[in-house]
């Protein structure tokens, strides 16, 4: 009798676990289907190339927001990626030094800083002294979010390169910096690239840090020293507005953003599969 109960308990729990997986995925499908359903009709060539129009007039688009996001991500990557990779290299290759231990702690802490606090920080040290909202400030806050993420994954990937590889390089008489850059890093390149792409996908969707740094722009921005529109901020502004046309455009913007992020993430999967690089995920 007790065995029967145990057997049914086993079957029941299997069902529960299966059910839980479905429940966890319901919101994913919910979000995706709505974004697709509501956003697709509003997508048009105009959406991608037009500027926003005044309240109540039709035909506006997200052109400046999309371009703004591209510019912000590029700028942030130019600073964030090398900085993060170098920190990751230091963590992996100089592991035993005191500084590295402090750096590891710092990187761990930096990943837990809420993104809105990053925005506050950049407002204080970039926006206020410059007396201007700017793409530079926005990119700075995104870079600050990227750095610890890239540092961590770089360190992880470098740790996976076998010691023998390094030692072989050193045994051949190569200086340490060449061994690190051209041998060790080379061996981890797809993993590091994966980390970089993941960081890019992450900052592409960040809104809070841009609120007080890049601010917003109803037009094209012509220099890096003026406010710039961005996709997530525009989605936010339109979503909380009362105007139907703006809601539709918000959904369309969300579709574009999701599409980009998914593309990067799935592209990464492909990278992992085809190169077979490290992480058990």
């Amino acid at each position, binding site marked *: 009798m007790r065995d029967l109960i145990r057997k049914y308990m086993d079957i029941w729990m299997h069902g529960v676990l299966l059910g839980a997986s479905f429940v966890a995925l319901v919101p994913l499908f919910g979000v995706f289907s709505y974004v697709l359903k509501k956003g697709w009709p509003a997508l048009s060539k105009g959406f991608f190339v037009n500027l926003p129009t005044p309240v109540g007039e039709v035909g506006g688009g997200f052109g400046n927001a999309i371009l703004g996001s591209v510019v912000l991500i590029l700028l942030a990557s130019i600073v964030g990626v090398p900085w993060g990779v170098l920190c990751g290299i230091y963590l992996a290759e100089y592991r035993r030094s005191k500084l590295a231990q402090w750096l590891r702690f710092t990187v761990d802490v930096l990943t837990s800083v809420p993104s809105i606090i990053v925005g506050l920080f950049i407002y204080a040290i970039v926006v*206020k002294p410059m007396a201007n909202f700017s793409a530079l400030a926005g990119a700075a806050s995104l870079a600050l979010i990227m750095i610890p993420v890239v540092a961590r994954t770089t360190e992880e990937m470098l740790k996976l390169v076998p010691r023998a590889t390094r030692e072989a390089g050193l045994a051949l008489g190569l200086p340490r910096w060449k061994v690190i850059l051209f041998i060790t890093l080379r061996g981890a390149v797809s993993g590091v690239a994966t980390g970089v792409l993941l960081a890019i996908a992450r900052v592409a969707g960040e809104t809070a840090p841009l609120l007080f740094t890049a601010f917003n*722009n*109803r*037009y094209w921005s*012509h220099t890096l020293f003026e*406010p710039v529109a961005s996709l997530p901020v525009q989605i936010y502004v339109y979503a*909380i*507005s*009362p*105007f139907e046309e703006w809601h539709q455009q918000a959904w369309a913007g969300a579709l574009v953003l999701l599409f980009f992020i998914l593309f990067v993430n799935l592209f990464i999967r492909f990278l992992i599969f085809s190169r077979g690089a490290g992480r058990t995920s």
Partner: protein
Amino acid sequence: MKLLAAILITTMAQIGFASPITLNGAGATFPYPLYSKWFSEYRKKAPDVQVNYNSIGSGGGIRQFADQTVDFGASDAPMTDEQIEKVSGKVVHIPTTLGAVVISYNLGDESSVDLKLTPNLIAEIYLGKIKKWNDPLIQKINPGAKLPDRSIVPVYRSDGSGTTAIFTDYLSKTYPDWKSEVGQGTAVKWKAGIGGRGNEGVTAQIKQTKGTIGYIEFVYAEQNHLPVAAIKNTAGQFVSPSVAAITSAAQGKLKEIPADFRVSITDAGGKKSYPIAGVTYLLVSTELQGEKGKKLLDLLRWIMGPAQQYSAKLSYAPLPKSLIHRVEAKIKTLKVK
């Protein structure tokens, strides 16, 4: 690589071949529909100037103006003496238009009810003392109306707002305990309800949630087909918001407008006056510099002139002529370094 360069160049070319001057402004959501129309029209008139106005609330307008992160601010709440001190007095308030703070509502299913409200009712709703739509006090003022048995959810501004300043100014004048219980200003401690961000956010809340009541600028209610209440003014008349009613309110207060233009036109006298009317301002520095300064002055002059014709269509009242003359005189005194 070449493709990337080509894309970059064409994009830059598209945007950059006649690099316009951008004037960055931020602030009040109250006049935003009008400003967005104005600045779009102005672009046609002066294609070398882009006016990038961001509707973030009067509080934000004052703050960013004080921080000098924008070229001009916008606020329906004139800066207080302390705030002016913070910028060492280097600010000019330029009135641009008049508008009405309307009380809009969402009764749920019975959406065709035209409500009449008194300042007492409004205050008590926002104090949480009147909790249901079919409260006898509301019913008494609206004898024929079918009021639902639903909770009232007052909606207020969660951000620093000139609209809030006008609204609370009105309630401070008309309800004895308002000042002590809640206060007057761009951000106050509300006793009940939920917050919306900007006039846009409050309007969205009213549209989406049954039982809500909120204070928003007139055109937001109109553009979103929301009902507005007729409010009892000091002359004892229930007045619905309209351009004429706003103008009437301003007329009553014209003589009181001081040299710096900071004035309140709420609770104005006159039978036809709408009681919750307000002036909105652009905040301009007295120390204008360079090309941007010159273009800003051009913009201001245009606002005092041709821009006024667009106001009425969007349910804002154009500035009275005598006020325009005074403002133009003030603008003349602004010098560009």
